[in-house]
């Protein structure tokens, strides 16, 4: 039944995506671990970590596509949920350091010793347990999204106003996490991780396992998101995107549908953040920066809004381009390229890579398309 929920109406594109991610998830770690260094097929650990990061972004992009592409909620604060998941994971990793920190305190992380704190703040309790930390990875962003969405959707804050207050949300969190008094490491954030579940974070095998885990979570995230959007609930959600008032007049509780999708999406973003932190090795308040959240939106826009696969594709493509651009002589021009990408995609490719490709494909199959006027949005 679950598999029917997850795989119902799966199209060719979805299967290609699943097969591709699964293949990467199996092959890349194998090629990294088994092939000798210097071999043509060897994948360096650094490359693997880099791609692990892209895949985390892909999961974040899918979570954003779920709310923006299918529900019409342009969240400019999804980076906040991503970072909260990351902080939950970071807190677990900090507690695993134990007495191996610079100051050798068995309980307090280094930065607390440095700030002369005497005991662990209450909100750090329990983070030495992995299951608890994983629960918090889901709960912290989920709860924030639930409370925020509860207020916002119930009072019908929509459109640009909602975008702006989500941005205010992440900005407020950015300021809060910069404070040393918050007990999250202030400016420097959490870093110097040693172990995850008893395995060394730096070890090649651990990194390979994390990479595979990221692929698994990406597949899971994709299946859940897809399961939601093709279900009956998903139809209502899409109806809300296209004509919110009309859906409300039909008797659906619009705010509840929105709240559900928003919360699921936030949890997904939290998982992406949690996978991101051990692979990158640091989490700091800059992840809350409004600019990061806006960049996530452009990944989705580039790949194709409302396609899920496109969102993941967009995240990988834009970030790969960013890596290539910013590491060479082109570095000063990256922001030009990124800015131009924003403008170009919104004006010329409103459907993104996937949508445009599909249009071209259909045009070739049907040389004389019948012109059907696009129905104007009802509101």
């Amino acid at each position: 039944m679950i598999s029917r929920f997850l795989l119902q109406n799966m199209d060719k594109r979805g299967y290609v995506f699943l097969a591709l991610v699964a293949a990467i998830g199996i092959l890349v770690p194998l090629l990294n671990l088994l092939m000798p260094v210097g071999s043509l097929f060897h994948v360096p650990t650094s490359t693997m970590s880099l791609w692990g990061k892209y895949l985390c972004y892909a999961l974040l992009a899918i979570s954003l596509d779920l709310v923006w592409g299918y529900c019409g909620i342009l969240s400019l604060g999804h980076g906040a949920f991503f970072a909260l998941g990351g902080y939950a994971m970071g807190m677990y990793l900090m507690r695993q350091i134990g007495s191996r920190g610079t100051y050798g305190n068995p309980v307090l992380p280094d930065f607390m010793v440095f700030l002369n704190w005497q005991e662990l703040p209450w909100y750090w309790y329990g983070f030495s347990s992995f299951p608890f930390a994983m629960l918090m990875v889901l709960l912290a962003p989920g709860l924030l999204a639930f409370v925020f969405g509860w207020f916002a959707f119930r009072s019908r804050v929509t459109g640009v106003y909602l975008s702006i207050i989500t941005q205010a949300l992440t900005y407020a969190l950015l300021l809060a996490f910069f404070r040393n008094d918050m007990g999250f490491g202030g400016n420097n954030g959490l870093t110097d991780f040693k172990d995850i579940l008893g395995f060394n974070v730096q070890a090649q095998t651990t990194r390979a396992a994390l990479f595979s885990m990221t692929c698994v979570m990406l597949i899971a995230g994709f299946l859940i998101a897809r399961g939601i959007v093709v279900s009956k609930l998903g139809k209502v959600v899409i109806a809300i995107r296209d004509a919110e008032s009309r859906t409300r007049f039909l008797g659906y509780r619009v705010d509840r549908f929105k709240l559900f999708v928003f919360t699921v999406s936030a949890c997904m973003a939290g998982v992406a953040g949690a996978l991101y932190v051990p692979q990158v090795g640091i989490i700091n308040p800059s992840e809350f920066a409004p600019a990061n959240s806006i960049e996530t939106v452009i990944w989705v826009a580039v790949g194709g809004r409302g396609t899920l696969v496109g969102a993941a594709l967009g995240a990988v493509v834009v970030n790969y381009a960013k890596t290539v651009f910013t590491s060479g002589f082109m570095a000063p021009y990256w922001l030009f390229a990124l800015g131009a990408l924003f403008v170009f995609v919104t004006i010329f490719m409103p459907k993104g890579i996937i949508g445009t490709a599909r249009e071209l494909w259909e045009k070739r199959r049907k040389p004389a398309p019948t012109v059907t006027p696009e129905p104007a949005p009802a509101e």
Partner: protein
Amino acid sequence: MRIVSCLLRMIALATLLALQPGAAAAQSADEAFTRLGADSFSDTNRAIELLIANAHPQAAPIIEALAAGRLLAGGGAVVIKTTDGKFLDARTGAALPAESPGLAPVRLNNGVRRNIQAALGGLGLLNPDAGKRIAAAEAVFKSRDVALLPVLEGAIAKETDARAKAALRQAQAAILVAKPDAPPFDRIAAIDVLRERGDQDALATLRSLPADSSPALKEAQSRAVSAIEGKLAVWRAGQNLWYGLSLGSVLLLAAIGLAITFGVMGVINMAHGEMVMLGAYTTFIVQEIIRTRFPGLFDYSLLIAVPLAFMVAGLVGIAIERGVIRFLYGRPLETLLATWGISLILQQAVRTAFGPTNREVGAPNFMSGAFEIGQLAITWNRLWIIVFAGLVFAALLAILKLTPIGLQMRAVTQNRRMASAMGIRTGRVDALTFGLGSGVAGLAGVALSQIDNVSPNLGQSYIIDSFMVVVFGGVGNLWGTLISAMTLGVANKLLEPYAGAVLGKIALLVFIILFIQKRPRGLFALKGRAVEA
């Protein structure tokens, strides 16, 4: 022991001062110079006292030279060596041709240095310049040097300038209050003088009253302390209010252009902050040209920059509207993304052209410095920015209410399709509105260049705040923007002393997020069909 003897000598000195025997003075001045040449610390001390007691015209340069080790003596001559290496006769101050042989610096020890400090304080009190006397009295007020009490009394008796007299009296009061052996009546009177003064220093002086004071004195003290505290709290609130208004005017300048574009076109222009930045850089360029070509015009640089910044930012705004936003009408969220892209491009362009570092924009004369009203410190640049913000606001209001284009803008804001049906070219109105909004952002840039760093990131730091102002105030209503900017500015500054700068800001953001739930369209929402779109 030493201090007591010093004190006694000072009292003697004051008596001498009060009597001022003319003939004896010349004689004892001679004695001072003899003693300076004697190369003994006690003689040097005595010489300092004599110089002060006689109010010798050369006393100040001599004692200053002594403190710096530039006073030379030997063979009956006392010579001041100036900092630029010339030699002066200490007695008359006349220049000497060359260094005479056998001169050695007059030596110092800690005792002499202490005396020199006290003497310099005393000298200032007798300075012929009233401003210097006030400054010296202030120094004594802070040091509360009991040894200077007699000198103070003498100075008060001779003082003719009212302000200097008050300052001297306050200094005297500060000493008397803490002096256990002074007559109780004098000490209570001193407390009254301090209460009249009523500032932070007076409060500190009153608080440092010895614990063994009499009950009457203590009561007077506690009454004075609470009176001063009440007065200071009012001033502090006033100062915070002023800071708040100043911040509010900055927010108003940054947000008002955004309010116009958002109100009329329904799009959030993420590149708005960059228009502010362009305005600031225009100011920088204008100043650079003036500095190199017409240095005399520097004081007018801002006046020249104002129309130029308006035009630069306005033209860039029109170009953005015609080039990008025109194609995205009806898709506000896409517009938001596209303008964000434009903001990245503009930032990077400025960074490439001017470098990533801060650029220095100077303040013309009329904007530098500060003045005080009571305990309020008001800087001219902040005051002018408030005035400027008020002028810009009034001008915009006039444009919207009194001109044909303003009428068209309002019509388009209220009902775009109806306006279009009535023959208004909405496309043209959009372009002009966007140009106007961007131009006003450019004006904000001119003002911000005076109080903030002119760097490519200038706009970024204001964009979120500007959004908050617009969203809080409601769209399409300039008065809403004004009230919202001032409320947020003042609230921010009033919260700061209690919560700290960062926490205060977080509290405001959370407040706005909650406020939007209550009134999703801001304080002053437009009513009617248009807002449902």
